[in-house]
């Protein structure tokens, strides 16, 4: 766990605000009386429902099965009754097909087991299939189906498996606690992932603000797999795949390409732990660790929350400040503000952060760009947000994509964060990207 000075170029240093929750062990959250489960909790096609209204289900039972390669199943987070199959509200504001599930208040909530994936005897495909059947998606926030990510395309090979324990978003301590408490699950997950990807070595990347986790994992490193821990300097957005690969391997993922182009696969550490915990038992994912924090939360902490737990129930239990003004799902740099509290925790929810009216300064005056260059110095991809912002204003979308590499932008928000003119740069870019994508579909 040598501290490498290697990192990526540029980046920013927002205040971390992790101290309040990083020392708090993961606690089981209570079961809500009614769970709200959208079918689509991942990028890709939603699953197909295999239960009917009124049916009693056991915790861990399949509710929906995967529908194609880029799709994962959904398992019941509690033992209870399928109350209704109907549209449910989601973070984006859209209603999508889903399930309302009533939990049995007196159930022991034991989890049923399925067909175990045996590490020794399973083939590459069996492990990949096992990960898909466990309903696992990237728990870091992107919710990309993990099995699809680790399937090495024909003609490519993976040298390095990178386990992402960076957690660079301010306020978040989920992965930090997972690393301190679930080392055996993490190493088991790494064994499965190394076998599935045929990687020659594995590096666990951790930022220097989690030195205790790095020390702990280093002390526990198993002998049977070539795994090491590397500590990198604290910087946002180092948790982004491309940035982490550059920090750890000194390689750049080609523009428009995937990590496998530089023979690497990156998997989030909590996802890895989940794989290590579920696969030996053939279980599906029913809960995840979430940091509930922010100035507006009374009982901050890292909680193991059943998927489908309504946000309103969660906030009621932890208690919120009466001046609660904004609620984010995910961290404040990339997370989304919640429009209504009737949505629920999904597989990709890494945190719930609550700000009060005191922290919200919405009357930032927007000035014209003064070309101070702060955004240029912040952009981890060395894009020119200043120029891109100007082009967005003139709706020169083609030029943005063709000459200024807009489509490479992964919307980390560093440019908006530093802009003294308060120009909503990354917001412009999101919009421009979606317009460009629509144009491409049309043509």
């Amino acid at each position, binding site marked *: 766990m040598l501290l490498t000075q290697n990192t990526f170029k540029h980046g920013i240093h*927002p205040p971390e605000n992790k101290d309040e929750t990083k020392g708090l062990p993961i606690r089981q959250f209570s079961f809500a009386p009614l769970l709200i489960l959208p079918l689509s909790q991942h990028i890709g096609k939603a699953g197909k429902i295999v239960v009917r209204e009124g049916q009693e289900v056991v915790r861990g039972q399949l509710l929906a099965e995967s529908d194609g390669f880029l799709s994962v199943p959904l398992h019941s987070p509690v033992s209870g009754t399928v109350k209704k199959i109907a549209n449910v509200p989601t973070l984006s504001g859209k209603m999508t097909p889903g399930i309302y599930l009533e939990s049995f208040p007196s159930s022991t909530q034991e989890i049923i087991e399925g067909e175990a994936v045996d590490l020794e005897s399973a083939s590459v495909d069996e492990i990949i299939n096992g990960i898909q059947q466990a309903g696992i998606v990237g728990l870091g926030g992107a919710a990309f189906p993990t099995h699809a990510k680790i399937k090495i395309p024909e003609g490519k090979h993976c040298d390095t498996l990178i386990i992402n324990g960076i957690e660079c978003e301010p306020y978040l301590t989920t992965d930090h606690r997972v690393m301190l408490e679930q080392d055996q699950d993490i190493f088991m997950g790494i064994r499965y992932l190394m076998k599935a990807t045929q990687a020659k070595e594995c590096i666990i990347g951790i930022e220097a603000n989690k030195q205790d986790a790095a020390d702990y994992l280093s002390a526990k490193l198993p002998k049977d797999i070539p795994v090491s821990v590397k500590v990198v300097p604290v910087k946002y957005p180092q948790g982004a795949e491309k940035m982490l690969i550059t920090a750890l391997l000194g390689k750049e993922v080609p523009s428009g390409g995937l990590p496998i182009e530089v023979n690497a696969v990156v998997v989030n550490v909590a996802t890895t732990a989940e794989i290590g915990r579920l696969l030996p038992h053939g279980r599906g994912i029913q809960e995840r660790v979430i940091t509930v924090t922010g100035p507006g939360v009374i009982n901050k902490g890292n909680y193991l929350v059943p998927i489908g737990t309504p946000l309103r129930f969660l906030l009621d239990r932890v208690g919120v400040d009466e001046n609660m003004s904004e609620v984010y799902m995910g961290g*404040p740099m990339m997370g989304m503000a919640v429009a209504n509290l009737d949505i629920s925790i999904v597989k990709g929810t890494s945190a719930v952060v609550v700000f009060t*009216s005191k922290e919200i300064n919405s009357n930032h005056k927007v000035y*014209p*760009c003064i*070309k101070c*260059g702060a955004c240029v110095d912040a952009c981890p991809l060395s894009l020119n947000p200043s120029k891109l912002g100007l082009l967005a204003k003139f709706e020169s979308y083609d030029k943005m994509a063709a000459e200024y590499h807009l489509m490479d932008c992964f919307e980390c928000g*560093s440019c908006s*964060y530093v802009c*003294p003119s308060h120009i909503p740069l990354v917001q412009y870019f999101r919009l421009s990207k979606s317009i460009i994508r629509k144009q491409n579909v049309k043509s």
Partner: protein
Amino acid sequence: MKKQSLHISTSPHLSQGTSVEVIMRNVVYALLPLSFYSVYAFGWNAALVILTAVFSAVLTEHVLSKLSNKESTISDWSAVITGLLLGLTLPPIFPLWMTFLGGVIAIAMGKFLFGGLGYNVFNPALVGRAVLQAAFPVAITTWQDAFSIDRFTSVNSSIWAMPFMMPVVDGTSGATPLSAFKFDGVVTDTSDLAMGLVSGSAGETSTILILLGGLYLVIRNFMNWKIPVSILLTVFIFSGILYSINPELYPSPGFMIFSGGLMLGAVFMASDMVASPITTLGVIVYGVIIGSMIVIIRIWGGLPEGVMYAILFGNALSPHIDRLIQNRVYGTSSAKS
């Protein structure tokens, strides 16, 4: 839980906390010691010139905003900077009506015509000064000796010249170190230059206070230090080479660095964010071009001083530098796709 109304915004939900107004205000702070020293050295004359320039710039900004039915933009402090910089680049006994005109031109032609803050190609204060230099070549090269005994007891009569009449040139004028060198081969002591004990424009004489102001802005991260450093290094190296070839013919690099408007121009004018390139390499190229132009004009040009034209030249090239020199985007093999 009581009924909540939730505020919605898009990420990032955090912001660094600085603003354009804060940056501009701090540039004004950085210029204040210099302005006060200028008044100390040149008396009421300098005070009147500086105040007139600021007043005229701010008034013009306000009036033009109102005339175009926009909210007044004087609260962003950028007009104050333009006025201050203009005042500091003028001779302390410059007629006030000309000063006023310079402020109007700086804002109207140098800034508003281009679309206001953020859109100006040239540093507005230098645009104002360039027009004044062209229109009033005599008045703008009529200097006052620093620390004259009567600087706080009387005001130079030329300052009150009526508009559109030739000012009566007052007897206190003296040559600047650069013109003394250029035309008479007289070299001024470098320490006198650094301390500001010489005649010259109101704000260009005290190198030390200019550097302190710049240092303040660099520490607070409100200025790109690479701009002044690359200009000064270029001037130093370029004139150093010439000096080593023939010390009789060419001035020493120390004299070049500390004389005239170089320090004020390099630290406060060339570093104008709006009119300078945005990438690090671009900024260095920009600095080298300006530095080279300064030496070329001073040594081989017809004028004793070349900072103003060199910076305006650099400003003009800046958009082209930004187009030609771009950062290499992550994951691509070259800057251009």
